[in-house]
């Protein structure tokens, strides 16, 4: 099925004061995708986002949102966007509610009921009538998220959104994002330098380094990881059996531990097989940190530029 892209970046470049900060980023996102923009500090994530929302003009390349060019059709393009950029800056001298009302006043489609719903979604109903100046960072972050999703945007852009959230807040936030993406069909663009956060939440991840996207991966692919570790009673025999019956090449890691890439073979069947063969299985695990390896491999040894 040919869907229209929600966000399309074409060869996006930005030079600030003679320094090339974003060096040709291409990206296409479709509805209901959660996209992670992962990169170390100073990689150019925020700069890219600023170009997407039209805060700064690209030196070269173009941004289009739901088919509308940000450069030429700014109003229509931005009608589809909600965002937090860099930090959730709000009017400190207004209350949370007044901040949201300021936002709502600029968009007639937002109803009082919608404001109420969103406030409950982010769990801020108890402090809504306090001045934002008295909020903690996490609370401001929540208000920022509320503000960003208020107009039911097709594209939600969040720059470092979990900064300052407590663990419970993180989980809530992840659930909220999933709900928005999978139930309401929003496309969510999350930037972060925190790998775990991206890994737990996103479908697609681009890794950006020094202004260049160096890799785009589907998280499902690498997380349904096929690298398995077993701790068992007879490693030598297990390696032999794997090779004979499953055509899997395994290596011995430690005294009782072997590791293998099982690719398409079902893990439960292999484990059953071991037990039938009389090999006692004490522990079996998937190696979870492939994305981290990838990230570290790709960004290793870099200074912040």
């Amino acid at each position, binding site marked *: 099925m040919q869907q229209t892209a929600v966000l399309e970046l074409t060869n996006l470049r930005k030079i600030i004061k003679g320094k090339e900060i974003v060096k040709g980023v291409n990206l296409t996102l479709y509805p209901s995708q959660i996209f992670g923009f992962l990169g170390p500090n100073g990689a150019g994530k925020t700069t890219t986002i600023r170009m997407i929302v039209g805060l700064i*003009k690209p030196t070269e390349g173009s941004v289009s949102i739901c088919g509308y060019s940000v450069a030429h059709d700014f109003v229509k393009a931005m009608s589809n966007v909600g965002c937090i950029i860099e930090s959730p800056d709000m*009017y400190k001298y*207004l209350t949370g509610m007044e901040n949201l009302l300021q936002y709502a006043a600029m968009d007639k489609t937002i109803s009082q009921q919608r404001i109420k719903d969103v406030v409950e979604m982010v769990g801020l109903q108890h402090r809504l009538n306090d001045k934002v100046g008295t909020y903690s960072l996490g609370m401001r972050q929540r208000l920022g998220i509320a503000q960003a999703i208020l107009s039911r945007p097709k594209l939600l852009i969040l720059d470092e959104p979990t900064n300052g959230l407590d663990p419970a807040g993180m989980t809530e936030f992840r659930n909220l994002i999933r709900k928005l993406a999978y139930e309401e069909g929003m496309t969510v663009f999350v930037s972060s330098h925190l790998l775990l956060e991206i890994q737990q939440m996103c479908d697609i991840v681009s890794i950006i380094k020094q202004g260049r996207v160096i890799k785009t991966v589907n998280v499902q692919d690498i997380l349904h990881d096929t690298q398995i570790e077993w701790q068992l009673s007879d490693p030598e025999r297990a390696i032999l059996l794997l090779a004979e019956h499953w055509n899997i090449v395994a290596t011995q890691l430690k005294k009782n531990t072997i590791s293998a890439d099982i690719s398409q073979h079902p893990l439960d069947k292999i484990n059953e097989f071991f037990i039938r063969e009389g090999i006692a299985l004490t522990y079996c695990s998937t190696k979870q940190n492939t994305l981290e390896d990838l990230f570290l491999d790709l960004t290793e040894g870099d200074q912040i530029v």
Partner: protein
Amino acid sequence: MFSLIENEVIKMISKKRLMFVLAILVVLISIFAYGQNQTLVRTKAQLSQRMGITATDDWRKLADQQLIDMKNRLDSPYMDEKSKSSSRVRMEQLQYNLDNNINPLEQSAAKFTTKFMEQAIFLFLPLLIIMLSADMVSGESSNGTIKLLLVRNVPRWKILLSKYLTLVILEVLIVFLAFVLSAIISGFFFGFGGWQAPVATGFKVLAGKLDSSSVLNVPQWQYSLMVYSLGFFVAFVVGSISFMISILVKSTAASIGIIMSTLVAGNFISFFLSDWKITRYMFMVNLRLTDYLSGSFQPIEGMNMLFSITILLGWAIASTIISFVYFTKQDILV
């Protein structure tokens, strides 16, 4: 557009800056009225003592005395030429008052109200406007909220226009309140009347001499209205300039600093650099518009009402154009 302006007004009120400005206005008017009252009492006492009269109501005698005082001062060798010619102009006015039976000493709420704006127009009123306008944009730049406004489905020029119109509304409000507050506060000191009293206007200064050929009397209320209209015009011009600076400079402190020091420098310039022709094109030395009405002497020769208004209008238009062009093009990196 209306809701954008409403947003701006809500912000302005919540920031408490507006209340602060109004409080300053009230305090200053009160002090000024009290001071005027004291001066009046003292002048009367002095004159009656010197002249040995008790009936200070006889203003004609006082006016005569003032004329003599001034004449004496004029003969003093310590007075420079400029103050001399300005004194001469004042004396001619006083003479005119005597001839037309206009009591220059008598105070009234109407007179005070007019005088307040005449005194406020070149420094105090601009300062109040600056306090409101200098952080309209830079304030949002320094706390990052400008991003909230500029990533919405509203074009940038509309955001800026809503701010600009809000500023104009505030200028009207401030000038209007200055009028109402000074009329009320001074009323307690001098009585609430005087609005019908005739005021002489239409003075022209020709070669350092007061030319009263086109002088005519208008009722005080009409004169006041003219003075406050000029006050609003000055507020508008200064507001536009400081609005522009608040766009060009990202920090509120810097923005207020720049425009205030410019303004204060203007007051120095008009006294110390008045021979330097180019200074007349600066907006700061053209703010004393009301002096053209009252016939007070201008520090820089060759300037008249039309000239000053043209210069000020030029500044306002240029600032507004620069504001809009820069704001709609600039990269927001905060």
